[in-house]
């Protein structure tokens, strides 16, 4: 319980959590909150400024920017969560196997991870997208392929750290199966650390999705997405610079909030860390 208290005491972390929860809820209730349909085109009103009908103005096709921003939460955050969840599940499974069984299986898995980790993830993602074509499903698959190796490795080392603990040794001597030990004794301890890993990284996943959509390789029109909105705003950067602000600021705040939260979580969990800095 100590860790949770630490987290609650940390004001900054709480602000981040409240902010992120608000963002997710806003995304969830976007259909009720958004003043317009985000894909409704109205070229007569294109590139309009701020008004009561369009609180943040309109884009190059006369679509309401506020509505697109709100609906964009769904796309961006949902994809980020799916990607993260899938990566963590794969990483936990494979990393768990490697950490528990050690020996040859571990060797093989780790060498495969080495191969995957020897390429920069951006290069790998671009190559996969190049082969499979752009689209939401494909960027999720591509980023899972690019990231699973790193998570496998991290989770393996977490698992190994615990397998050396006395109580685990004791459980093993008592004749419990490996699966039982993993489930009952290792996972409850490891979950916290894995959560830290995931929160730390979700910001970078959001950035990556936005970057790919910015390049036109990710989410396809007309689905509203922040990276794509930014890219559309870039095309009129000089004449309407203000158009870049809403999606840009949205990405900045959400990614920053996730990063700060990840840091605070790490502080709360990592004893060594805590001792050194406080």
């Amino acid at each position, binding site marked *: 319980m100590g860790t949770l208290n630490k987290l609650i005491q940390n004001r900054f972390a709480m602000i981040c959590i409240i902010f992120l929860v608000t963002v997710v809820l806003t995304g969830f209730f976007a259909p009720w909150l958004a003043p317009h349909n985000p*894909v*409704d*085109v109205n*070229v*007569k009103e*294109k*590139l309009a400024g701020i008004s009561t009908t369009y609180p943040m103005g309109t884009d*190059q*096709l*006369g679509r309401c920017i506020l509505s697109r921003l709100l609906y964009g939460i769904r796309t961006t955050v949902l994809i980020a969560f799916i990607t993260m969840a899938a990566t963590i599940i794969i990483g936990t499974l494979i990393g768990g196997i490697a950490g528990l069984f050690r020996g040859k299986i571990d060797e093989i898995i780790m060498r495969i991870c080495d191969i995957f980790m020897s390429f920069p993830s951006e290069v790998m993602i671009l190559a996969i997208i190049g082969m499979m*074509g*752009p*689209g939401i499903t494909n960027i999720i698959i591509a980023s899972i392929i690019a990231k699973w190796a790193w998570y496998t490795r991290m989770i393996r080392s977490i698992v190994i750290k615990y397998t050396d603990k006395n109580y685990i040794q004791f459980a093993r001597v008592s004749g419990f199966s490996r699966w039982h030990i993993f489930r009952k004794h290792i996972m409850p301890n490891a979950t916290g650390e894995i959560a830290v890993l995931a929160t730390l990284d979700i910001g970078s996943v959001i950035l990556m999705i936005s970057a790919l959509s910015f390049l*036109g390789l990710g989410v*396809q*029109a*007309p689905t509203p997405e922040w990276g794509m909105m930014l890219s*559309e705003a*870039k*095309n*009129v*950067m*000089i*004449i*309407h610079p203000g158009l870049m602000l809403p999606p840009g600021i949205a990405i900045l705040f959400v990614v920053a909030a996730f990063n700060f939260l990840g840091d605070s979580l790490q502080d709360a969990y990592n004893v060594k860390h805590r001792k050194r800095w406080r």
Partner: protein
Amino acid sequence: MRKFSIVLLAILFCLLLVSCSNQDNAEIAKEEIVYASSKDIRDINPHLYSGEMAAQNMVFESLVINTEDEVEPWLAESWEISDDGMEYIFHLREDVTFTDGEKFNAEAVKQNMDAILDNEERHAWLDLVNLIEENIVVDEYTYKLVLKHPYYPTLTELGLTRPFRFLSPNDFVDATTRDGVDGYSGTGPWILTEHNENQEAVFTANVEYWGEQPEVDNVRWKVMPDHQTILLALEKGEIDLIFGSDGDMIDLDSFSALEEQGKYITEMSEPIASRAILLNSNRPITKNVDVREALQYAIDKQSIADGVLNGTESVAPTLLSSTAPYSDLGLEAREYNPDKASELLDEAGWKLDDSGYRYKDEEKLELSLYYNSDNAQEKTISEYIQHDLREIGVDLHITGEQKQAFLDRQKSGEFDLQYSLSWGTPYDPQSYLSSWRIPAHGDYQAQIGLDRKVWLDETITDLMIENDEAEREAMYDEVLSYIHDESVYIPLVYSRTKAVHRPELQGVTFNVSQYEIPFEKMYFEAE
């Protein structure tokens, strides 16, 4: 100590920034036009297709040139055509030399022609190449071209930007040009003097030029892949001119904003080419002519022209503008009429569902449109079309692809809808129609589902060599009416070439071809 070094570092950094700011701004004498393009000039070998056409046009010249009214003499002073239309005798100018000192004469013309014919396959899209029987040097300044059949667009095709342009025979490799050349010595008003790939190219005025001398000394062709960078460079005064067609260099929102701002001069050519959407007749859903026709009525072209394109382009009622030769056929324009579109789809068996989309035998009315993601305009237009089609219950998926993937898709025919831009004058209609017969073109792929595709190709082949004017007119009528009735194209608008330049730069005009830039006529106003 540490503080001191930080301050020192900060000062040094500021100095660095100062030295970065454009120091050469002041020294740009008004003797150089700086032009920014999103593309490099690449290999400007005039007999191949990889180079940038505007650059090829600066260095190399043709026997004749296309103007608004007719074909006019250029390197050939005059010509005679035999009565049967099979022999063309050209009398060449006697005062022309290549920039490497080589004389331009009938021998050089023949060597160039032979080099082009040596690579016949590559030029197959151009009928003239297939029809040349022989080419003969009559005397030093007389050259004769003999055709297999009479071919009416011969002179027009000889005046195209490529491939019938002349390179000094000294630059040939093994007497041919198909595998690359040794240099780029042409007869044109400009000489390519410097080329750093993907950075810039410098063209210097040819002082020995036989015709009117260019007004300025240099043209500096800077490569800036991003449209916004080009605009920024214009604002900063780094470049003098933006020139291009079809959203390649500047998007229309920026163009209109600059126009209103009034700081720069914006110019537009006459409508030149047709912007259209190809409907693939060889795909499960668009195979049905009623569906294709319904889509014609579903798109609000007027709003695309006025809204998306800011009224800078005019709505296209038919694929080819009625001002193009042989194209004034009085075909019925299909105006925006969503009710009629819905009616046609209902008749074709696509029924509206509660979800707002149409279904037929459990299958959803889903179509795909691919566009070139490098193009500033196509994405916006695609999204607009997507919106229009949703109104009548059609689910259109749009996908932006890199240019090469986009072109490969044209060749493979794996698309329901696809962008098609005609090449404009002087290519329309003959070369454009001619290209419909080449499998590597999206047009061909989209047409193979038609019942009479074989007839269509044969008629196009026949009409090119038809010598009787009235007969030819009738054949064009048949071909264009058939394509119109089959609704293979949704004509959107007629595009224009656009230019933005600094007010000091004068003489910015447009050539007949949208791919050429007449730098030689531009000059700076004395201050």
